[in-house]
């Protein structure tokens, strides 16, 4: 009997609306649909911003700016292309702009500051800790250009293939690979200089 009753309860199938359909609904003036889109994409957008910028509060502000720009420019989206590619392009543009401004400010203030670990630390060996790796990354990646860092983050942390990154940034795949190669090289140099204990990992290979 209870099984019969259960069957009679109307079920509402939760059909996930495609991003393109959602954008179409927003273009027709549905603000609630935009809220749904923001909710859906917040984690991805924020994660990418955070990894590029390296600061939670700045990343939050930049993510909000991205969504406001998204709202203002939604008419320009061409549904022939994947929505995420278009969204990521917007994120990278805003984040790179922010990084360029930030770098010029930081260079003016902190040009002589440098964290250097002693050779004695290197002798003691190292246990790789996640939180520490995050700090190391934020430190050594500061020598990268905003574009190099963005490409490194998208490839190494977001696992996007270089072809997809090329689409997002509107450049050639070979350019992406070059940036990636240079980014790795620069970061290894910085690692030797600032974190000899981690750089030893490379030396031991």
């Amino acid at each position, binding site marked *: 009997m209870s099984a019969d009753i259960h069957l009679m309860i109307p079920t509402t199938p939760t059909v996930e609306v495609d991003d393109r359909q959602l954008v179409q609904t927003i273009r027709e003036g549905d603000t609630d649909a935009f809220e749904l889109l923001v909710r859906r994409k917040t*984690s991805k957008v924020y994660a990418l911003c*955070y*990894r590029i910028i390296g600061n939670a*509060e700045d990343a939050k502000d930049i993510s909000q700016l991205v*969504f406001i720009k998204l*709202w203002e420019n939604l008419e320009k989206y061409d549904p022939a292309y994947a929505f995420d590619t278009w969204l990521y392009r917007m994120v990278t543009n805003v984040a790179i702009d922010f990084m360029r401004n930030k770098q010029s400010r930081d260079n003016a203030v902190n040009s002589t500051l440098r964290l250097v670990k002693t050779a004695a630390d290197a002798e003691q060996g190292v246990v790789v800790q*996640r939180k520490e790796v995050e700090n190391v990354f934020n430190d050594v990646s500061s020598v990268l250009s905003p574009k190099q860092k963005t490409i490194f983050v998208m490839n*190494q942390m977001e*696992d996007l293939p270089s072809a997809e990154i090329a689409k997002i940034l509107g450049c050639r795949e070979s350019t992406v690979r070059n940036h990636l190669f240079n980014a790795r090289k620069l970061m290894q140099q910085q690692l030797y200089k600032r974190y000899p204990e981690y750089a030893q990992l490379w030396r031991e290979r």
Partner: protein
Amino acid sequence: MMSCETFRMNFHESTEDAALLAHLRTCDRCLDFAATADPDVMFRALGGDDLVPPGGIDAFVDDVMRQVRVRDAEITVTAPHPVSWTRRLAVAATLAAAVTGATLVYRYDTAAPPATRLVRAPIAVQRAALTTKPSVETYQSESATIVEVPADQNDNVKVVMIFDESLPADL
């Protein structure tokens, strides 16, 4: 979820295996192992998961929507009253017609010869009145000033003005 043992057995340099990377990003012990085997993988451990902004997703979304509404309101207030394209077209057509008409009228006024003839008609009447006075064929005087009035090339009559104190006033 992959076990640490499976991860260590299958991990190799420059791996792109999604399952291996997923494990690497959640297991601290395996991160240390992987970094020793392939230092390049160290920073890869930072990626993978989607992150939640400070304050949580709800607060973030509320902030965004509030800003969107404020911007929308600003646009509504500052935007000029919308004019339909048909009305714009009508205004443009009226302006074009007015300019064209004014140009045509101006050209007609400056170039049309009948207007000149109409002006000359009263002059002919004046000439007729002048003929009632004695016409002078020749005139000689030492004190007179003679001014020749410009005339059309086709006109045989030559009109001169004579200023002479010695002449009678009614001549």
